[in-house]
Structure formats: C-alpha cells, structure tokens
C-alpha cells in the first residue's frame, strides 16, 4: 500500500516559479505519467517527491505521512535518473548491493535479493560486469534494478530512456510497464514524449509552465483535451481561432453551427475528424497531399494563411490546388482556456 498525496505544492527558484499550486493523488499501484514541454516543471516535481528539492510551500505525503521536509536518504522512494547515475567504480552487483549494505542486511540475503532483481530486469548473470561493459539499455536496467532492490513504496523515473534510440525505448517502456504491474508499485514517470505517456500511463498529468492543465486517463486526454494547450500538445490537432455569432462559429473559409453563446472561441479538430469535399469557393485550397499508403494527409490553406491537416482514405482522390469545403465531424470548442462544447465522437 502506497498512496502519494501532493497538496498545493509550489516551488520557486529565485525568481522562477517552477511548479505552482500543484495537486495530485496517486493511488496504490497506479502509474502516472508527467507530460509537458521542456521547462514545464516535470523534473522539479519529481525531485520534490524524491526529496532532492524542498517545496517552497505545500505538502507531500506518502501513505498519509508528511515527508515534505524529509531528506532523500530517509524517504521510501526510489529514483531512476536520466543517465550517468551508476557508480562506475563498482560492478553491477555492488551497485545493487550498496543500499542493502547500508541497511546492514546479512550478505546471504543481499546476494539473494540482488540476484532476484537482476533476474527481473533480464540481467541474470551480469553481476560481475563493470558498468562500462554494459550497453545504454542495460545500464538503465541496472539503474532500475538498483531502485527496485530496495522495494521502494514509490518509484520515480525521470525520462529514464531519453538517451536511448526509439526501438530500445519502446521495448524498455513495455518492460517497465510489465514490471510495474507485476510488482504493483506506485510509479511516477516523467516524459516529454506523448506516445510514451499514452502507451504507459494509467493517468496522464499534462504540465504547462508549472501548472497542471489536465489530469486524466490517456483516452480522455486524447479524446477530450481539457484546454487548447492539451489539445495541441497531444497528437495532431487543428486549432482554429474564430468568433461565434448567432450560434455560428466563423473563420475565413470555415463556418460551423454550434450551440454556443456569442463571443471569441477556439475550434479544435483532429485531422481524422475533418471531412473535406470538393467545392467551388476558393476559401480553402489544398496545398499538398502526402500519401502514407494506408491513408493520406491533406494540407489545406485557408484564406488567411492558416494551414489545417485533414486525413483522407485515398490520396488519389485529391490534388494540390483543388478548392475544398470543410466539415468537422467531431470537434471541441474552447473559450477562456476551458472546453465549452464538444460534438461528435
């Protein structure tokens, strides 16, 4: 049982507000991804949970126990860093055994636990290797094992696979997910890759400039982004600024009826939900068609220069220079940074 409670946490570095009034409760055994652009405060948040930074204000509690000011060496958390965190003067076994030795466990038990955890991360028999004799992926597995061997209540991973190539990253991501579910360990995973977050998380926290924009399961974040920022950050999204007058959203080249009060609004449409049909008016013109075999992506220029993307089943049906009419099938409308209307799927 390990529940993490973050209440109203703020972190200020000198003049920079890195994290602002952040709230989150992570359930026992849950895997939460922190997702956001560079500088949005993901690492700062994780480091506060691990004890490497102290919150300027707010409370962090693990299983109801306030740990806000507890140093890392006395927190029940385990952190996996991005890189360079293995102790190069120790071999793999010693890297894993160090924490257990500090806890004065008998050597026989240390040996058993280290070997068991090496087995779990797929590195059985690698104990006597020096760290520089390992590949990048193996090194990160050792780093993961080093945290796991201490059976932390909460596992923290800060972009652990960022320095690895795409293929390896995907494989390790799957392994982490399997391991996490087997051990049922409460986990926070920092990433700035949306595909990583969508593939891994029970819930995603989208951060922007130190504030959380949305905290929801991946499918909700993808299908019903709470703010235009989330809509633009996750997946490809057409964001169109316009004005609603008399129940009609207006933007040059695109009019759309919707039950929304008059005023400025932002329309968000995914490429796969933007229908196109041949038309005569030249308000929307195809700029380019890219054929991906299974589908095509059609770039469309509106009269005011805004470029939209639409997905079409067959590239051969469309050619650059053709005028088209746009019909969003599923869309969301935002005003003042909140969704005020959703239609379609």
């Amino acid at each position: 049982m390990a529940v993490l409670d973050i209440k109203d946490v703020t972190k200020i570095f000198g003049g920079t507000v890195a994290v602002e009034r952040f709230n989150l409760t992570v359930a026992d055994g849950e895997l939460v991804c922190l997702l956001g652009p560079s500088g949005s405060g993901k690492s700062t948040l994780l480091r506060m949970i691990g004890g490497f930074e102290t919150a300027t204000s707010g409370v962090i509690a693990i299983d109801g126990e306030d740990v806000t000011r507890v140093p890392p060496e006395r927190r029940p958390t385990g952190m996996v860093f991005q890189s360079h965190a293995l102790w190069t003067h120790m071999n793999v076994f010693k890297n894993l055994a160090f924490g257990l030795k500090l806890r004065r466990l008998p050597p026989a038990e240390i040996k058993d636990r280290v070997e068991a955890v090496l087995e779990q991360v797929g590195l059985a028999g690698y104990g006597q290797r020096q760290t520089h004799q390992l590949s990048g992926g193996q090194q990160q597995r050792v780093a993961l094992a080093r945290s796991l061997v201490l059976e932390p209540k909460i596992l923290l991973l800060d972009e652990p696979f960022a320095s690895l190539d795409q293929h390896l990253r995907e494989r390790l991501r799957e392994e982490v997910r399997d391991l996490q579910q087997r051990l049922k360990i409460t986990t926070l995973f920092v990433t700035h890759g949306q595909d990583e977050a969508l593939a891994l998380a029970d819930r995603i926290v989208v951060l922007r400039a130190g504030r959380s924009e949305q905290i929801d399961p991946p499918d909700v974040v993808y299908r019903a982004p709470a703010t235009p920022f989330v809509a633009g950050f996750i997946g490809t999204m057409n964001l169109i600024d316009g004005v609603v007058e008399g129940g009609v959203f207006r933007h040059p080249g695109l009019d759309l009826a919707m039950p929304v009060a008059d005023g400025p609004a932002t329309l968000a449409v995914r490429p796969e939900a933007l229908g196109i049909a041949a038309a005569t008016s030249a308000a929307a013109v195809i700029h380019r068609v890219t054929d991906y075999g299974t589908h095509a992506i059609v770039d469309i220029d509106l009269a005011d220069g805004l470029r939209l993307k639409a997905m079409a089943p067959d590239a051969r049906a469309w050619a650059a220079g053709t005028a088209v009419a746009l019909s969003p099938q599923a869309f969301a409308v935002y005003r003042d940074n909140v969704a005020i209307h959703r239609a379609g799927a």
Partner: protein
Amino acid sequence: MIIWPILSAIGRTLWLPGADGVSRFSLETYVFFFSDQYSINNLMVTLWTTGVCALLLLPICLPIALYLRFAKGRLAAYVQGLAIFPMFVPSIILSYAIIRVLGPNGTVDLLFNSVGLPKIRSPYLTPWGPVIGLVWDNIPLTVLILLSGLGAVSDQSVEAARDVGARRWAVLWHIILPRITNSILVAISFTVLGIFSAFTLPYVLGPAAPEMMGPFMQRTFRDLNDPTNAITQAVISFAFCIVFGLFYVRSVAKNRKT
C-alpha cells in the same frame, strides 16, 4: 633535456677531481652527507615538514573543494576566490605577512596581550613556521586539483547514493572518495615535490638549524662555496622525489587497470 643535467649532476658527485687533476670514482660526498649529523637532521626536518604539510593539506583542502563542488550560489564564488587567493601572493610577501601576524609582537600577540592573555609561543623560526607558510601557499593548487577530480563525480551519482539511503559520510566514503583517489595522489605528489625544494618560506620562516634542504643547498653552494656537496644534497633530494614519483605513477597505473 631533463635527464642530461641530472646524469651530469650525479656524475659530478661520483667522479671527484683528484689532486693531480684526474677524476676518480668515489662515494665520499654521499658518505659525508649520511655521516654528518647536521645533514641528516636537515634531511629529516625536510621529510617531517613535507609529511606534516601533506597531512594537513588534505583535511584542509578536501572540505573546501567539496564545498566548492556541491554548494551553489554566490557564497561559493567568494570562497573560491579566497581559496585561490594565496596563489597570487609571492612567497616573500606571504612570509612577512605571517611574521607580522604570528611572529613575536605580531597581531595575534598584541590581541592576546590586550585581553590579558600570555604571549604565544610564536611558530616563527621553529619548524612550524615553514609548515604554516607552506600549507597556506599550497592550498590553491591542492584545492584546484581536488576540484578537477570532483568535477568527474556527477550530481546524479551523488543523488542516486542519497536515494538508496546513504548519509553524508557514506556518500563521501563510498561514492566520492573512490572516484577522486587519483586526484588526491596527484595533489599529494605536487605538494611533496614542491615542498621538498621550497626555498623562500623555509628560509625566512624556519629555524637556522636544522634547516630544510632548499636553504641548506643554497647555503652550501653560496656561503660555503662547496658546489660538490650542494649537488650531492640536490641529488639526494631528487632521489626522494623520484621514489615518491614512482610510487605515485604505480598507484595511478594500478588504478587504471581496475
């Protein structure tokens, strides 16, 4: 270029010109050095000073270097400035500064006097005089060498150690020190080599007898006009440095292998 003068120096102490102008092989200058109690005392005091300086420098410089490496902010910058400062002070000025502060009727004496404390036993003109001066003089180099070693210890590896439960001392002992043993060796050998041949500070601050090898050589050469014995003294000092150098090279090489 370095080897030749050394060989020639050794040669000149071993092949002495005889009365008839023909040089002959002889160990007598060395026999003289090692049978002369005064020379031996000088050698001992030099070894003692070197050893004490090295022993004092590490506990002084390691905390400074650790602080500079891991502290952030403006204070660290000032401390760095202070630690490097002695490097820019010529030894002769440093010597007089130490005399003025710690010498008889120096600042410390006056301060003690003014609050009614007894006179201090000034280290000036005792073997401790050069020790204080040389330690002070060698702080910057030692700190810089240690600091460069600490540069190779990443923040993340230290944080990872704390994460698995290591307190301050455990981090220092198990994570930091093993990674900077080479730097410590380099720092010690630099100070040993430098102190062995130091001249100004021992000359000005040290006792007249026994004296350190630096002033001893100088005096034998100049005042006693005895170049052969001066060179003998130099060769003996050099031999000690070589022994230490070899020891250092071996341990670095051993470290490389593992």
